[in-house]
């Protein structure tokens, strides 16, 4: 693509982008689903029918009814209230999981790609080592060292997400460091730090945003899996995976205890996956269809 055509595209970019967003069903539905999860998480205390922690053994294990739309658990806690507050927890998991891994992975990847040579070899070697671990196995190793808790689980998730961001940032940097405006910045005397973080990083945001959206779904799934195994959020935290695990004890007696939190997981992950697909189509030129 020539410089001129890039400029033309950019000039005509805004109306085109608007039409594209409207045309893309993925962006619309994915965005809507994610917006619902985010909104529920934010307004949880105001829309929740009850406290997610308040117990009342008198109404334990009730089937879904008008008073308790998703029923109650063995302590008489309202399942809907716990799912609503679970959305808040999932958002926190995503924010911390994506945040921690991107804060470590992206600068490491940019430095690796920018300097190349020995630095790149060592960083790539280290990323390859982390990459060789299946995510949940690495998370189990980290949790076994730090102990089972919500925060330690998030550290574990961040550790296995670091190489994803590292490799992506490295590849984008490799491409961007040869681009004319980066060379121009260098020629004007800009320091390496400035070139890396204000020219290269700023222009690699699109693929990083796509990655963050796609990994949000993975984070929700992994966090739920670890909590289900009893190695993440501990009772009585209203975490979706832990709630499914609790419902496991009442299989055949009261399925709704596992059913609804599991549906919540699928809804949230589906939303992030569809939105991620849509964003990739929109932002990543390799997936653009004319």
């Amino acid at each position, binding site marked *: 693509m020539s410089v001129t055509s890039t400029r033309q595209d950019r000039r005509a970019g805004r109306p085109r982008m608007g039409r594209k967003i409207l045309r893309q069903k993925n962006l619309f539905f994915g965005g809507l689903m994610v917006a619902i999860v985010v909104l529920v998480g934010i307004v949880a205390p105001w829309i929740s029918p009850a406290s997610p922690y308040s117990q009342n053994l008198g109404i334990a294990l009730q089937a879904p009814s008008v008073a308790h739309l998703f029923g109650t658990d063995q302590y008489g806690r309202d399942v809907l209230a716990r799912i609503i507050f679970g959305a808040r927890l999932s958002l926190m998991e995503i924010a911390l999981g994506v945040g921690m891994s991107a804060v470590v992975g992206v600068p490491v990847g940019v430095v690796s790609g920018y300097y190349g040579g020995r630095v790149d070899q060592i960083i790539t070697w280290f990323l390859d080592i982390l990459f060789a*671990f299946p995510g949940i196995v690495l998370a189990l190793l980290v949790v076994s060292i730090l102990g089972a808790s919500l925060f330690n689980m998030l550290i574990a998730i961040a550790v296995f997400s670091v190489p994803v961001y590292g490799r992506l940032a490295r590849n984008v940097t490799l491409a961007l460091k040869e681009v004319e405006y980066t060379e121009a910045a260098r020629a004007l005397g800009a320091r390496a730090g400035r070139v890396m973080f204000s020219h290269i990083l700023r222009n690699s945001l699109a693929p990083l945003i796509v990655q963050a959206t796609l990994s949000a779904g993975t984070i929700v799934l992994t966090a739920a899996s670890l909590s289900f195994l009893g190695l993440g959020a501990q009772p009585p935290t209203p975490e979706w995976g832990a709630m499914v695990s609790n419902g496991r004890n009442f299989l055949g007696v009261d399925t709704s205890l*596992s059913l609804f939190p599991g549906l919540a997981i699928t809804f949230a992950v589906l939303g992030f996956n569809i939105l991620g697909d849509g964003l990739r189509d929109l932002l990543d030129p390799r997936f653009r269809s004319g």
Partner: protein
Amino acid sequence: MTTYALKKLLALPLVVLGVSALIFFAVRILPGDPAKLMAGPKAPQSVVEAMRVRMGLDRPLWVQYESFLWRALHGDLGTSIRSHKPVDTEIAERFPYTLRLALAAYLFAIVTGITAGVLAAINQKTWFDSAVMFLAIIGASTANFWLALMAMNIFAVHLGWLPLLGAGGWKHYVLPTFTLGLFPAALVARMTRSSMLEVINQDYIRTAMSKGLRPAVVYRKHALRNALIPIVTVVGLNLGGLLGGAVVTETVFNWPGLGRLLVNAVQFRDYPIIQGLTLLTVLTVVLANFVVDLVIAVINPRIRYD
């Protein structure tokens, strides 16, 4: 090609060394004194000290790492703190269960994924295509432990068609295979569809069609064969994900495999098992990735071996 394979092969020991060092030193940070754990809670101090010397924990850390590597290379991965059995025996006892489950799940994923993906691609933009893609994205977004519980509830608890827990005859494989295989099946279906769509619009497919060949032959022999590379990549590189999924699936179904062994070991801080099992899992993944790289290089001569 040989240079490429050799280059890849030479890079392997470096990654293996790094992985083993990471696991070894990570496990050494574990809270609790391994000698005390091994000797038992009521053992007197002298026994604990003797155990420490026997386990080599009194030696410098790098000497311990060296000896760990040396013994691991000879198949000695230490002794389980919980069962007092050698780690390699524990792993060997459970390995066949995980292997059989993983193979069944892979087979399920490949057969359903490729079939659904090909059918979706040749019926592009029809209701069938949309349905397959919708199911695939749902499959990739569903927590496998939840799916397992729901399937157990329907087919084992209510209908009584399939056994609820444990390993045994073929009926025991149905639910765990479906649970473990759904995620890779969804990935394979999506990849097969997009890969087939790229190939189907090529000139040589049009030529084959206009020669009067039956569409089934064209799709199978001309299109699918050329669409295979990304599919092989997805299938091969997903081995790690499958092994990770086995951890959860085996726990839900009380399947006596390696995944459950790992979860139990983490819960009881049985560090020799965690160390040995993690090392073996990662080595399997690294080797599988190496083989996938080679297979891709063989089936796609366009890949430059730089």
